[in-house]
């Protein structure tokens, strides 16, 4: 196995197809570890992994923590609500403090786009972006790629529809870069008020007609709708959104019969996705969660261990 050329994992736009493939390949062996009865390898023993979360999170934070633990790293989780941040400490000072305690990798989620870039400038240890504002969520993008590759055997040439609030979604952006770099044909769909301008220039098709996006799709990735967007006037009501843009059985029937249905979670059942399809055989939503741990193990391994056998 090789090593990542990058010092940090800040976004898939900055990552080469070779690096992405290396992470996905590495995640295959990691997934095997998660399937064992004793889910522990000594790979990162003596290494310290710190998660620093400025936004609430269950799955991503836990996923990174378990990824570290399964490889015997020491993991520390900091939720800013209970940290010195509430005393007014700046990101820079918090980060430096953590690094001085011997942190080997910092994993951060932050509501402001670009904050992981700032973090990477102020610390020497590798930084992993666990979601920054509306910018990127690279580990989610990679776990989605991993899931698609596992279920479809390839990524190149697949037709992938990403449906929902594209504008505010870091998952959408990371998926777009990852999928297009690896050769998929991507269509993004959602209400025009939730489509960012000039998204076509990112190399995707853009439409407000969900039916059109789903037509013949191999993969449908449904994004979470943040319900508070409605108050900002971006769409009139949850009801109208669900009727016009929600993915349900009827809509999904336009896709290929073997369509793979994905959702990064947490779901608003009955809003952007109907329970019928979320719980159907097409759905890989639960498997995505397991794959998330495997991909994050691969990221930590390649950033910290690299070279040694897993």
């Amino acid at each position: 196995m090789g090593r990542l050329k990058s010092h940090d994992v800040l976004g898939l736009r900055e990552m080469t197809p070779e690096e992405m493939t290396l992470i996905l390949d590495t995640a295959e062996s990691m997934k095997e570890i998660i399937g064992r009865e004793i889910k522990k390898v000594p790979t990162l023993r003596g290494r310290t992994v710190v998660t620093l979360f400025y936004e609430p999170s269950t799955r991503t934070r836990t996923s990174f923590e378990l990824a570290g633990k399964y490889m015997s790293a020491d993991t520390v989780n900091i939720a800013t609500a209970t940290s010195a941040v509430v005393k007014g400490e700046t990101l820079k000072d918090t980060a430096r403090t953590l690094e001085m305690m011997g942190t080997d990798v910092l994993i951060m989620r932050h509501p402001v786009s670009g904050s992981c870039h700032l973090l990477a400038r102020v610390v020497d240890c590798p930084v992993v972006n666990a979601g920054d504002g509306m910018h990127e969520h690279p580990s989610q993008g990679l776990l989605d790629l991993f899931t698609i590759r596992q279920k479809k055997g390839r990524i190149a040439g697949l037709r992938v529809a990403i449906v929902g609030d594209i504008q505010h979604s870091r998952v959408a952006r990371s998926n777009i870069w990852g999928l297009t770099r690896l050769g998929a044909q991507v269509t993004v769909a959602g209400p025009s008020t939730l489509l960012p301008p000039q998204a076509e220039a990112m190399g995707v098709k853009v439409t407000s007609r969900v039916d059109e996006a789903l037509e013949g799709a191999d993969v449908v990735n449904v994004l979470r709708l943040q319900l508070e967007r409605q108050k900002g006037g971006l769409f009139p009501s949850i009801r109208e959104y669900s009727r016009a843009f929600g993915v349900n059985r009827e809509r999904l029937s336009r896709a290929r019969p073997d369509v793979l249905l994905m959702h990064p979670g947490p779901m608003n059942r009955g809003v952007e996705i109907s329970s019928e399809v979320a719980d159907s055989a097409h759905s890989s939503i639960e498997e995505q969660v397991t794959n998330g741990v495997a991909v994050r193990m691969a990221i930590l391994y390649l950033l910290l261990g690299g070279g040694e056998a897993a």
Partner: protein
Amino acid sequence: MKLLIRGGRVIDPGRAVDQVMDVLVDGERIAKDGTPDRVVDARGMLVVPGLIDLHTHMREPGFEYKEDIASGTRAAARGGYTTVLAMANTQPVIDNRASVEWVLNAGRERGVIRLLTVGAVSKGQKGEELAELGDMVEGGAAAFSDDGHPVASGELMRCALLYARMWDKPVIAHCEDRSLAGEGLMNLGYWSTVLGLRGIPWVAETAMVARDLQLAELTGGRLHLAHLSCARSVELVREAKARGVRVTAEVTPHHLVLTDEAVDTCRFDTDTRMNPPLRSPADVESLLEGLRDGAIDAIATDHAPHHLDDKDVEYAYALPGIVGLETTVGLILSRLVDTGRLSLETAIRALTAGPARVLGLDQGTLAPGSPADVTVIDPAREWIVDPSRFASKSRNTPFKGWQLRGQATLTIAAGKVVHDGIA
């Protein structure tokens, strides 16, 4: 003291002068002839009227940790400026005669160049009640502006233009519809899409430009538009000028040499965050065209010093704005004039005669009898922008590390040498 600046290329756009000649400073005036006490060899140099900045945030009183009148005017002198117009968004706001007089006195006591000030349009810049404009004129206010905040109320703006007309003073408008700008952090377009930063559409500016132009037309008042950033704004101003509306306009150096892509290439560096935001290449082209055809009258720095603590934070938490006094000449000469995008004459006009006309000043020319404000620029001097060497207290500039060509080497304000970088 009589100082002879010998053998330089004199560019005095107000008089259509561009020739090698001598300039004699005699006390506080430019003189025709006389015997000098000191001679400066200006061969190979540009000799231009002292530069005038229509848009400087001096930060004093209230924010002296960012800049004060002493450091800000020193920065101006280094950059070749001999007159700057201070904005009123200080703490307290410059919204009454006593404050105006305080700033002007402080300028005389601690400033090294001529310091002018605006008075606020509204009390406390709250956009509610008209400030005492007449009293402030008597105290010496050169213009009025709530800059930093748009005047949201159309009626208040109408009254301000109409009222200020009695003294023929311009109202300087910061054109921004806050309902459209929202929580925006950069230009709305491809780069805001890629970077996931909230976008500010151009119409947030142009909607207010259109309103204010029509209010100027309605009232006959004098309107000056601050820091225009969009193509459509330039078109609107050009059309209004053609119809005889009394309007002038300025553009900043950063809106002329950077585009919104800088937020990406500088990797979310908060020194790319400004208001109005950096725009598209097409907008930059239109702004340059506006300077060339006279739709835009002046290049103004919008010098906005911020402490590192206000900038070295997450992008959305950083305060908008950058310093500009010490980089403008180098940027304009090397990035616009040397590259053939702007003529030297147009560039110098926009830094001298243009802004002088906006404020109705008798500076901005080297005609004998004029105030002795002269700037000597070495157009061939190569230098690297090193913010740690700024005279300004603040270092917030996206141009750090840029290799520039052209720098003010001698600045004379009111007959006194206030910057001597020849040695």
